[in-house]
């Protein structure tokens, strides 16, 4: 059965979630065909700083060259194949393979081989790219580093499409115009297929049902004992309560679809708050960018954006979620928090508190999402063949724009899925 037969207009075959054959093809065609988020260049500020991760299941690292450029290289020694960059992060003026000491420059070029003379008569030589650490095609947008295994992929900015505006806005929100990764990275293991997670991310129907336990817990705890406005406790309560919005409010959020599976969710401009921490931040922004520009920046209220298939950004609280399929029923999600340079500590600490509350493995919110995903995965392991009636909101214009009650963004994801899985490389 060709993979595209697994997807119909409004539904998918349960196999897309449970078949290892499908996952292998997804790794090769989707993750191997698209751009993938690798990291943020603030993680490697100094020359020689590197960060190891995976691209489509292959070990790679990004490293800062003395010129300031970021290189993304396969972590795979051309000699016998060892990982050359060790650990998760490090700094190296040049890279030395631990096994036989071949050395490479920071851009991957082979520098020296011990006892080089014994290679005489062979084809091994310095300068032949076959003996370099192979670079991936990579590009940096506003500090966000992407790479692809696909030489025919469009240019990054074109591929990002309207998602570029989200990354723009995130960056511009920093009074100094710069973001930096700070405060640590949560690594959460989900017991579900990677697509189950992406299909949840603009889902305004689920919170009232899935998050009942934390909503009712918060009702009980608050009864007659509201936390002080502006306190951490109040923020935590507000975060929980966001899941209690009624369907009308959810319907007022705009979800736009574009590009190869991407989408954004945005709301009306946040009302001007009288909270001193926010005010101080806004003043800093005005001071640096001018009132009109600050106003334009703050008027954009992106709740989140999916950059298909491996990144979801959450501009309002400066969160990144990076998605790694582990197996058909396990997905690793890394959650990073960005610091707005030029904003006060108090303002940035709210994003830390947000991460703790929403993205920690111990979050009383997330735990119920994870249970919903687990149940989807477990249900799809058996049961009947066709599921996922992604039919809600057929009237969304050309599927391009709808609300958080609409499932058009899922249909959009599966159009991209089908495109990649048919073997299209651009």
């Amino acid at each position: 059965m060709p993979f595209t037969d697994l997807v119909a207009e409004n539904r998918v075959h349960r196999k897309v979630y449970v078949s290892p054959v499908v996952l292998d093809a997804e790794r090769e065609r989707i993750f191997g065909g698209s751009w993938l988020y690798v990291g943020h260049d603030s993680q490697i500020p100094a020359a020689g700083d590197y960060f190891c991760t995976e691209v489509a299941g292959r070990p790679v690292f990004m490293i800062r060259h003395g010129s300031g450029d970021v290189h993304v290289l396969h972590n795979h020694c051309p000699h016998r194949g060892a990982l050359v960059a060790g650990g998760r992060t490090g700094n190296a003026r040049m890279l030395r393979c631990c096994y036989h000491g071949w050395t490479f420059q920071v851009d991957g070029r082979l520098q020296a081989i011990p006892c080089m003379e014994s290679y005489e008569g062979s084809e091994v030589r310095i300068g032949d790219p076959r003996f370099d650490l192979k670079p991936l095609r990579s590009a940096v947008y506003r500090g966000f580093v992407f790479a692809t295994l696909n030489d025919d992929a469009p240019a990054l900015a074109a591929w990002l499409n309207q998602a570029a505006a989200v990354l723009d806005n995130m960056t511009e929100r920093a009074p100094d115009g710069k973001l930096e990764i700070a405060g640590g990275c949560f690594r959460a293991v989900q017991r579900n297929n990677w697509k189950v997670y992406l299909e949840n991310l603009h889902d305004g129907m689920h919170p009232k049902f899935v998050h009942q336990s934390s909503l009712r817990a918060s009702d009980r705890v608050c009864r007659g004992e509201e936390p002080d406005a502006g306190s951490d406790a109040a923020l935590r309560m507000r975060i929980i309560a966001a899941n209690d919005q009624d369907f009308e409010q959810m319907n007022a959020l705009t979800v736009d679809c574009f590009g190869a599976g991407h989408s954004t969710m945005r709301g009306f401009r946040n009302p001007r708050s009288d909270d001193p921490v926010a005010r101080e931040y806004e003043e800093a922004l005005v001071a640096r960018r001018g009132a009109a520009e600050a106003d334009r920046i703050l008027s954009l209220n992106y709740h989140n954006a999916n950059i298909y298939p491996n990144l979801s950004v959450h501009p309002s609280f400066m969160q990144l979620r990076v998605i790694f399929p582990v197996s058909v029923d396990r997905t690793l999600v890394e959650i990073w928090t960005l610091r707005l340079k030029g904003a006060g500590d108090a303002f940035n600490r709210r994003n830390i508190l947000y991460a703790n509350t929403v993205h920690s493995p111990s979050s009383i919110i997330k735990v119920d999402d994870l249970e919903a995903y687990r149940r989807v995965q477990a249900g799809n392991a058996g049961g009947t063949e066709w599921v996922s009636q992604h039919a809600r909101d057929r009237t969304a214009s050309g599927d391009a724009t709808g609300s958080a009650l609409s499932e058009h963004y899922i249909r959009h994801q599966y159009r991209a899925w089908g495109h990649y899985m048919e073997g299209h490389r651009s």
Partner: protein
Amino acid sequence: MMLVRDPSLQADLTPSLRERLALLLHDESEQLDTGRFDAWLALFTPDCVYWMPLSPEQPDALDHVSLFYEDRLAMRLRIERLRHPRAHSLKDLIRTSRCGATPVAEKIDESTGDLVITRRFQMVEYHRDRTRLFAGIYTYQIADFRDDPRIRLKRVDLVDSAAPFEAIETFI
């Protein structure tokens, strides 16, 4: 039942006070294992904190994310959720069992006058036919330890705090 590291504490920590403190720590674990959450919360001060750092080296919970960083209100939230009939994941019961080593009274915290006690532990959690093992060290700050000992801080450093985790629903 409790070791005392700092010799200057020996006088203060009479055998009966040691036993009282050891029982306090024992109960703190036991009440979690037996699901008596109100009794558990009663062991803590009103300004208590339950903290599980992501990294043992992180200086604080403000500029760095934590696996848990909960004040009394957040602790109560978790407890209420654990009791809620529509906490979907809890349709399948979670059980835990903690095994702790002998606690060690380490020192007096200078800023608060609290007694600092550490205790190595291992906890097995059972959920949906699988068990997980958590291991590490508890660090307690005990307020008013001579007269009415209560826990002001429970800090949990997991040996694998940097590992990827599935959901952690219970206190550890």
